[in-house]
């Protein structure tokens, strides 16, 4: 059996990233769009940890913890915006959120 190399982890991370991108670009439900962003951030984390393993130092793992902090902030603020929007317009469909569009 082929031993698991760094490229294996990178391919898994790329697939997760692309799934997240598809979710962001195609879904209408804004909550699921935010979940897809979490998927993207997780793919980035997996890449960072795989590179940390490849080089044998811990910088990548520290960076992945910072990315997790960012994900937590993004989820809190994003869901706050979503609740505020739902209170005003009674919808969370992405194609009805067009206040700033002209």
């Amino acid at each position: 059996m082929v031993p698991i190399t760094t490229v294996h982890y990178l391919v898994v991370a790329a697939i997760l990233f692309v799934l997240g991108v598809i979710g962001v670009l195609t879904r209408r439900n804004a909550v699921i769009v935010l979940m897809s962003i979490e998927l993207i951030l997780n793919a980035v984390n997996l890449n960072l940890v795989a590179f940390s393993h490849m080089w044998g130092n811990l910088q990548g793992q520290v960076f992945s913890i910072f990315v997790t902090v960012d994900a937590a902030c993004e989820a809190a603020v994003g869901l706050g915006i979503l609740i505020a929007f739902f209170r005003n317009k009674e919808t969370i469909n992405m194609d009805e959120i067009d206040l700033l569009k002209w």
Partner: protein
Amino acid sequence: MNPAMNSAVNAGMVPVATPWFFYMLAGLAVLSGALVITRRNAVHSALALIVTLISVAGLYLMLYAPFVFAVQLFVYAGGIMLLFLFVIMLVNVERSSKERRFNRMWPVGFAAACSLMALFMFAFLKGKALFPDRRIPLPEASNTQQIAALLYGEAGGMGSYTFAFEIASLLLLAAILGAVIMTKKKL
């Protein structure tokens, strides 16, 4: 640890089950990741996302990163997903679960994402030599200690990332205030 296992670790041997575990965890992550973006009900998507997060946490464990594994389980699968589930229950899923799942431009988005995937695969195939498999063993037992030394510094000195760590705490504070202010009914 028994002597046979000890000598195996000293010889730098890879555990026998590693490829199977990798393929199982990777398949689970990708499968439930696909479920996240295709389910009609947002609660099902959230549950599938939890499965993805836990499988990715297992991959971290295979990469000798036990601290990141724990952070992934506690912060992501615990905290963030709890927040998501609460918000799903606050906004009504009834209406949006009866409507179209994808927007009208979905073929364009899908094609763009597929070309991105093709670009990734091209880069990985062409640049395989850029990702050497060195397998420098990271010390697993002192992993948390070493991350702490990088984040907080040791023996009175600042670590390499102490400043970034403090900025991250400020960012979290700003996010808490932002979330509270935005969800308040009357300011």
